[in-house]
């Protein structure tokens, strides 16, 4: 029981929104509709993060995913002509859809077996099982609002335990920037840069 009170209703609402719009992401005919549905999924998942008191990750999810990655997706959909998919004649799925369904069913069986055999609440002794959540909220001395220390604690963990991956991530992002710039050049730009290299 990691949620309590009215959080339960929010959990079911957000889970339903995430699942349904995830399904529509896969099934929508137009790529723009897929992107909008995926945005709804991401926002619902961000709400789930908030329910689990991971406020910092919720902010990162909204800012990076919904504000950054999805806008990139929409721009590319705009650049790439996907008008063909809106016609009812165009095939939506590739020929291997049957194999995809079989693999998804196999995954479902595997996951249900894994969840069944490793239910974390059944591996706990009854005295270990939490009844009331340990609160991480502290009263703000300046005001009445309780403030969460989640962002501070995640920041401490990020720069202590995760300092090396943090630096590696910066290199990864640099590679991504350079790679996407190089990949998205037009042939004319490529020719121009080649000529510049030949004539110093």
């Amino acid at each position, binding site marked *: 029981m990691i949620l309590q009170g009215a959080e339960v209703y929010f959990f079911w609402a957000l889970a339903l929104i995430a*699942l349904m719009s995830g399904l529509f992401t896969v099934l929508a005919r137009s790529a723009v509709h897929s992107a909008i549905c995926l945005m709804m999924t991401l926002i619902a998942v961000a709400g789930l993060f908030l329910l689990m008191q991971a406020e910092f990750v919720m902010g990162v999810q909204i800012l990076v995913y919904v504000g950054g990655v999805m806008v990139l997706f929409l721009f590319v959909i705009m650049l790439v002509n996907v008008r063909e998919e809106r016609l009812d004649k165009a095939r939506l799925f590739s020929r291997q859809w049957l194999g995809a369904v079989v693999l998804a069913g196999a995954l479902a069986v595997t996951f249900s077996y894994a*969840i069944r055999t490793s239910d974390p609440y059944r591996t706990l002794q009854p005295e270990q099982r939490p009844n009331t959540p340990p609160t991480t909220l502290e009263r703000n001395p300046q005001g009445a609002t309780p403030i969460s220390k989640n962002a501070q604690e995640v920041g401490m963990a*990020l720069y202590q335990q995760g300092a090396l991956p943090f630096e590696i991530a910066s290199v990864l992002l640099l590679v991504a920037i350079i790679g996407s710039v190089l990949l998205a050049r037009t042939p004319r730009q490529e020719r121009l840069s080649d000529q510049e290299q030949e004539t110093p």
Partner: protein
Amino acid sequence: MISLVAPALALLWQVGQQTQAAPTASTGAQGLFDLAPTTTKFLILSSLLFIIGVGGVLARRNIIVIFMSIELILNAANINFIAFTRHWQMIGKISEHTGELFTIFIITVAAAEAAIGLGIVVSLYRNRETVAVDEIDLLKW
């Protein structure tokens, strides 16, 4: 559409069977229609999102939608990480934030992957005039 929903229903049914058969004396009242969201419910949610994403990756033709399905898969993993972090916090390790670190790095890698992948899509469209994956078969045996 039904073919994609069917595995999800099978999963729900199996888990429901399991929770009804579980020894209810030690775990409290648990069943399929017990609405209390435990960590297991979060795992079921994330596995359903994962299955939807895998179905989209394997079955769709549009490469951009395939990328979006990959984002779904990564988000399913993120839900698992955050749920287990919360689980450990509830058990008593109040300063446990490793799962949130993993989530932040997953989001970083997803952003980099989206940038590179969409760059590839743009240059592919410029060369081949298509975004359907079964028409991009130059390297196929």
